[in-house]
């Protein structure tokens, strides 16, 4: 019989044992399968996420007009499209106004026809929101008739809020009208800018930190039922199986569990995949169809998990002597050596250190080197824990009986205990390192906007070619219940010569009250004019200025009107205007959006009459935020007046979207992994207790207090956990320090996250110990002494 046939025969026999051991055998195999299955599902999800993100980008690109084909003049195949995105109760709504200029106008992806005037096409999620009671206010804003529901090809995710509003008035006012695009098709090939290197570092690490504990967990799961299996193998030795044969049979049992695990894992993944479309995380959702693991990664998982199960079993049995007389003795464990255990983390650090400072100035990391370094460092934690535990407990003696029982058990077999804590230690170390990195780069990625929400909750930004006069719009906004103040400011451009060069003089027109928002005026009355000098504290004020009495041109100073080929508007040419000679010079002041102005400030009666149709304007709106609907009522008023007008919520800080998503991902991932490992800990704990049922009963028989035995179980778990967490915290802080140096951040230990993650790990142990107490008390009953 060839070597291969021998292996196949013994592995097959082990597989039969896995399923043929009656209810107990099935339970054990199923337990292993569920454990491995959970790990496999997590692996499959992880391998599918990059593909899902790529699909998401592709969907976004397919409907993008950013670099799509354009036309200069209306034609049979042109479509006008303008973005009119909205915000409703902190939810961003993607919106476009569209108008077909010819019968062959391109259709946006997901639409069957272009909505006509008074019609709109909605994404399913927006349709649902509008139909719900929560969407009542939004219905007032988006009250067009629904022509159709946008299909999946036109959405980046099933939860996306999107609408296309049909129009017959939309027009493009010359090539400089950047609000409206005239396109002949959708989609473009983008040479997508890669993720910021530091964000990429975090993504890579998040995956590594989450997947490492899963691998440790799978390795633990295939050893469920190990001690009972060893006894069964001893019986096989009695009937003639040799040592190698029983090891192969044991590997066959683990193989069966892992194969069940693969099937269950695929099932868990399929269930999770079908449910994923129902969830949105920070308004990001994924179509189930997009969540497909890369085939080569799925094959790798399918091959690696059973192979790992066999390897782990053979590795675990290397120190066990299985004798024919039913006696299973663990050989005297050889002293664990430190050199190779230290080698792994040192090599890991060696790989990471050369990456120092690469995150600066848009540098690039070698992702494989980073991932390799982190993996080696975290594996280093898993191999150092058994050594540390062995050395620590070797010196221990004395203490109460419960302590002695626990310590002696750890001295005899610290490997099992170390295996239990490895997963948690790796998860905690990885999470601490990442949290440190997050805390370190938080300042960089959470940017101060310079906005002052105390002065205005909303800035209404009216671009040139607005359809509604400014004052009328300001009055409409001011009339909204809950709006306490609406201050309009109009800006136009003036120039010393025409056509103007790059630097024009900004002329800001407003009442004294409004001008006070952008400059320190002192006294002011209607008819006054001011020259703004800019700020002494900032040097980023742009634009030229003028002196009192200067003659300037106003209106179409850049000559857009004469350059308009489409002839969509008739614009008057530039006109002369003289800066009032009594204009006072005043210092600039940051407006509520954080902008400093230069140029001229004039009250309406002092303003030039021929400013043309090129003004930009802003209305700073203060609201009574105790009214929950005020902001949306104001947005409704703005949208009804002019859908192109943007109502921008002012905030003092802005978090980079990528950063917050990764942090959220890490948080949920770490929780999921800890719960998973907690389950594995509990199963292993119960199994150990069941193996000691007779001994526990005997100890109780001769008077051992149940509290003594319960405490010994607690110490037995707590000692390795405390050691593991101390090592994990150290390794996490060390890894965090290396990562921060890579991201060119000054070292700062985020003690809150160190304590938080360590406490979370310890919490899992406490919960597991508490959950294992009821079975422990049951196992201490005298029934365990019955031999007949």
């Amino acid at each position, binding site marked *: 019989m060839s070597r291969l046939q021998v292996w196949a025969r013994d592995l097959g026999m082990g597989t039969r044992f896995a399923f043929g051991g009656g209810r107990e055998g099935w339970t054990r195999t199923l337990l292993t399968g569920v454990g491995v299955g959970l790990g496999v599902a997590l692996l499959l999800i992880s391998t599918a996420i990059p593909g899902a993100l790529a699909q998401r980008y592709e969907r976004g690109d397919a409907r993008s007009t950013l670099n799509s084909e354009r036309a200069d003049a209306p034609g049979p195949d042109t479509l006008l499209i303008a973005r009119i995105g909205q915000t409703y109760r902190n939810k961003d709504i993607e919106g476009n106004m569209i108008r077909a200029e010819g019968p062959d106008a391109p259709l946006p992806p997901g639409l069957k026809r272009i909505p006509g005037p008074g019609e709109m096409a909605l994404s399913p999620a927006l349709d649902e929101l509008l139909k719900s009671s929560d969407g009542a206010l939004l219905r007032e804003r988006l009250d067009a008739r629904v022509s159709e529901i946008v299909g999946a090809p036109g959405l980046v995710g099933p939860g996306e809020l999107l609408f296309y509003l049909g129009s017959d008035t939309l027009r493009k006012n010359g090539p400089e009208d950047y609000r409206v695009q005239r396109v002949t098709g959708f989609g473009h090939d983008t040479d997508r800018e890669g993720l910021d290197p530091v964000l990429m570092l975090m993504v890579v690490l998040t995956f590594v930190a989450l997947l490492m504990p899963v691998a440790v967990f799978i390795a633990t799961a295939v050893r469920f039922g190990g001690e009972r299996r060893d006894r069964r193998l001893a019986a096989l030795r009695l009937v003639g199986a040799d040592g190698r044969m029983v090891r192969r049979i044991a590997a066959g049992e683990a193989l069966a569990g892992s194969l069940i695990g693969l099937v269950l894992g695929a099932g868990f993944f399929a269930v999770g995949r079908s449910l994923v479309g129902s969830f949105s995380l920070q308004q990001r959702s994924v179509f189930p169809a997009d969540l497909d693991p890369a085939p080569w990664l799925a094959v790798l998982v399918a091959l690696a998990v059973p192979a790992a199960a066999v390897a782990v079993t053979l590795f675990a049995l290397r120190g066990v002597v299985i004798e024919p007389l039913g006696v299973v003795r663990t050989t005297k464990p050889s002293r664990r050596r430190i050199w190779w255990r230290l080698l792994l983390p040192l090599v890991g650090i060696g790989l990471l250190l050369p990456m120092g400072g690469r995150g600066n100035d848009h540098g690039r990391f070698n992702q494989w080197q980073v991932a390799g370094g982190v993996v080696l460092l975290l594996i280093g934690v898993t191999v150092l824990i058994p050594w540390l535990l062995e050395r620590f407990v070797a010196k221990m003696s004395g203490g109460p009986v419960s302590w002695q*029982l626990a310590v002696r058990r750890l001295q005899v077999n610290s490997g099992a205990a170390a295996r239990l804590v490895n997963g948690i230690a790796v998860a905690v170390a990885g999470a601490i390192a990442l949290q440190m990195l997050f805390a370190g780069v938080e300042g960089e990625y959470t940017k101060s906007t310079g906005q002052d929400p105390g002065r205005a909750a909303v800035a209404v930004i009216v671009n040139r070619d607005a359809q509604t006069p400014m004052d009328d719009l300001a009055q409409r906004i001011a009339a909204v219940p809950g709006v306490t103040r609406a201050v309009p400011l109009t800006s136009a451009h003036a120039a010393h010569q025409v056509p103007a060069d790059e630097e024009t003089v900004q002329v800001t027109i407003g009442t004294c009250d409004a001008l006070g928002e952008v400059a320190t005026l002192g006294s002011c009355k209607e008819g006054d004019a001011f020259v703004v000098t800019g700020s002494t504290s900032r040097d980023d004020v742009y634009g030229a200025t003028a002196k009192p009495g200067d003659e300037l041109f106003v209106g179409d100073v850049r000559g857009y009107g004469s350059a308009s080929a489409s002839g969509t508007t008739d614009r008057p040419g530039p006109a002369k205007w003289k800066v009032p000679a009594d204009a006072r010079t005043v210092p600039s002041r940051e407006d509520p959006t954080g902008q400093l102005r230069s140029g001229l400030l004039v009250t309406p009666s002092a303003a030039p009459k021929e400013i043309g149709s090129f003004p930009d304007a802003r209305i700073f709106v203060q609201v009574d935020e105790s009214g929950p609907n005020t902001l949306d009522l104001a947005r409704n008023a703005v949208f009804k007046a002019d859908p192109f007008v943007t109502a921008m919520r002012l905030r003092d800080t802005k978090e980079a979207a990528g950063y917050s998503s990764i942090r959220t991902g890490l948080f949920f991932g770490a929780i999921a992994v800890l719960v998973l490992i907690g389950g594995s800990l509990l199963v292993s704990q119960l199994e150990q207790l069941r193996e000691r049922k007779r001994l526990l*009963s*005997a100890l109780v028989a*001769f008077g*051992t*207090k149940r509290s*003594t035995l319960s405490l010994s179980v607690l110490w037995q778990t707590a000692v390795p956990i405390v050691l593991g967490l101390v090592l994990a915290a150290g390794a996490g802080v060390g890894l965090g320090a290396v990562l921060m140096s890579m991201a060119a951040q000054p070292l700062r230990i985020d003690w809150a996250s160190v304590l938080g993650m360590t406490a979370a790990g310890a919490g899992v142990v406490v919960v597991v110990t508490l959950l294992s107490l009821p079975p422990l008390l049951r196992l201490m009953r005298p029934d365990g*002494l*019955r*031999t007949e």
Partner: protein
Amino acid sequence: MMTPAGTLLAATDLRKAFGTTKALDGAEFSIHPGEVVAVMGPSGSGKSTLLHCLAGIVPPDSGSITYAGRELTSLNDAERSALRRTEFGFVFQFGQLVPELTCVENVALPLRLTGVKRKEAERTALHWMEQLQVEELVAKRPGEISGGQGQRVAVARALVTAPRVIFADEPTGALDSLNGELVMQLLTEAARSANAAVVLVTHETRVAAYSDREIVVRDGKSRDMERIV
């Protein structure tokens, strides 16, 4: 049944059922200080259940058990545990030695449970290991010694608290005849020298021969067989 005068441990009309199975059905028992009583009977006859009830490990459904004038059935679990720690010793067929502890730590364990300091407990344990001729096993763990040696260590552990009653459930069940003889000889000699009573559950007549008296249990009922010396 009237309890004989000078009885250390006695039971009357003991009944215990596990589900519908009657393990004890009116069993009687008595033992004097320093006496060795063998409880015999076929498998499943109820002899181990009798021992568990007498030792306060499981409470009977009904009946009376008196130990040194105290009614055992009226004690709560904690009081019965304390009694087992201080007054009783145990030898079982399997699973009585803690595999992680050394032999001397195993023998000292009952003393440690009563609060005796480790060094003092191990000194006393060493004395009893010498009595049972296993003093060379002091630093060994149960996995490193033979079955016969393990049972002698277990007997030493049963005697270390100077108990007044030793309960031995099939103490030689897993031993060959030579080792079984040695264990029984040392157990009975040590018990008699300490004036400890021994309740010996066995189904082997060869083992029962070391006793002063035999009680046969069949279908949960007991019958006292006075030995004629």
